[in-house]
């Protein structure tokens, strides 16, 4: 091992000029057997040994499970909050909209169909059958009917004056 290089690295380390890789080299170098480290550099060994020692500190095994448990309970509550009511009901509303469209379409179809049927219901004179075989008898019947109508129509009574029809007009 070239100790000059290590010496330089140590100086550069304290000047804050070493790279992460070089700092790793120093930590590795100074944590080897003390006998392996040259006497003039030994004084720095505890500095790097401390850094390695401190890296070994860790939390107990139960911590992992504890945090997992704490974060497992949260999602059910928080997740429910993240889905808004409108978002939750969206599929239902979509289905309802489809049903509404189908219903209104069938309604419209029913309506146009029934209108078509009404048109068919109109009087078809061609379907009528004659009541009388004898044209003279038929004519007599029509004349009687018209006579009856004529008697009832346009018959003014003696009392029907303007005054009796519009009594208030005179006053």
């Amino acid at each position: 091992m070239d100790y000059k290089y290590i010496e330089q690295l140590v100086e550069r380390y304290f000047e804050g000029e070493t790279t992460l890789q070089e700092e790793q080299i120093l930590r590795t170098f100074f944590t080897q057997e003390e006998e392996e480290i040259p006497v003039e550099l030994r004084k720095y060994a505890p500095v790097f040994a401390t850094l390695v020692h401190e890296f070994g500190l860790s939390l107990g095994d139960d911590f992992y499970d504890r945090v997992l448990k704490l974060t497992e309970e949260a999602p059910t509550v928080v997740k429910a909050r993240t889905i808004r009511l409108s978002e939750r009901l969206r599929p239902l509303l979509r289905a309802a909209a489809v049903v509404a469209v189908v219903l209104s379409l069938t309604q419209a179809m029913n309506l146009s169909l029934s209108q078509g049927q009404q048109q068919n219901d109109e009087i078809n004179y061609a379907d009528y059958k004659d009541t009388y075989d004898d044209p003279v008898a038929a004519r007599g019947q029509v004349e009687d009917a018209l006579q009856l109508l004529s008697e009832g129509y346009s018959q003014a009574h003696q009392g029907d004056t303007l005054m009796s029809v519009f009594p208030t007009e005179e006053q």
Partner: protein
Amino acid sequence: MKKISFQADVLPLKDMLFRLALRITLNHAEAEDVVQETMIKVWNLREQWPGIESIEAFCITICRNLALDKQKKMVNQSQSLDESQHEAPDTSHAANPEQQTVANDRIQLIKRLMDRLPEKQRTCMQLRDIEGKAYKEIAAALDISEQQVKVNIFRARQTIRQQYLATEQYGL
């Protein structure tokens, strides 16, 4: 951008966050609380994850802020009380128990020197020298410039070197 998974991307940061929280609060139990609060906060902010450039920097920022809050609230902050709790079992490379103790004492001394640094220097040094983070990542997490990160790390290393060598030379 890659989809972020809590279990795969956030939870594995727990030890790194713990070490950072410990460096700031200097208290084992408080640091553990800080990491737990950080995890829950990050989880609750999961709607923001897709817009985050680095989930790690995001977690570090939250963890640091929570740790700083905790530190302010701590009335009886006791550094020496805590040390017994997170002492390393065996980090020494020396075979002989006496040498081991000496090596351990030196580690504890440097740790104390680190813990005495101003918070920003401490945090920058923690993230760089212990966690191996790039200046850019540290700058993003602390919301300061890369230059400021470098200056903080430089000052931290200089202080540690001077105080450590002085202590070694003249005794405690």
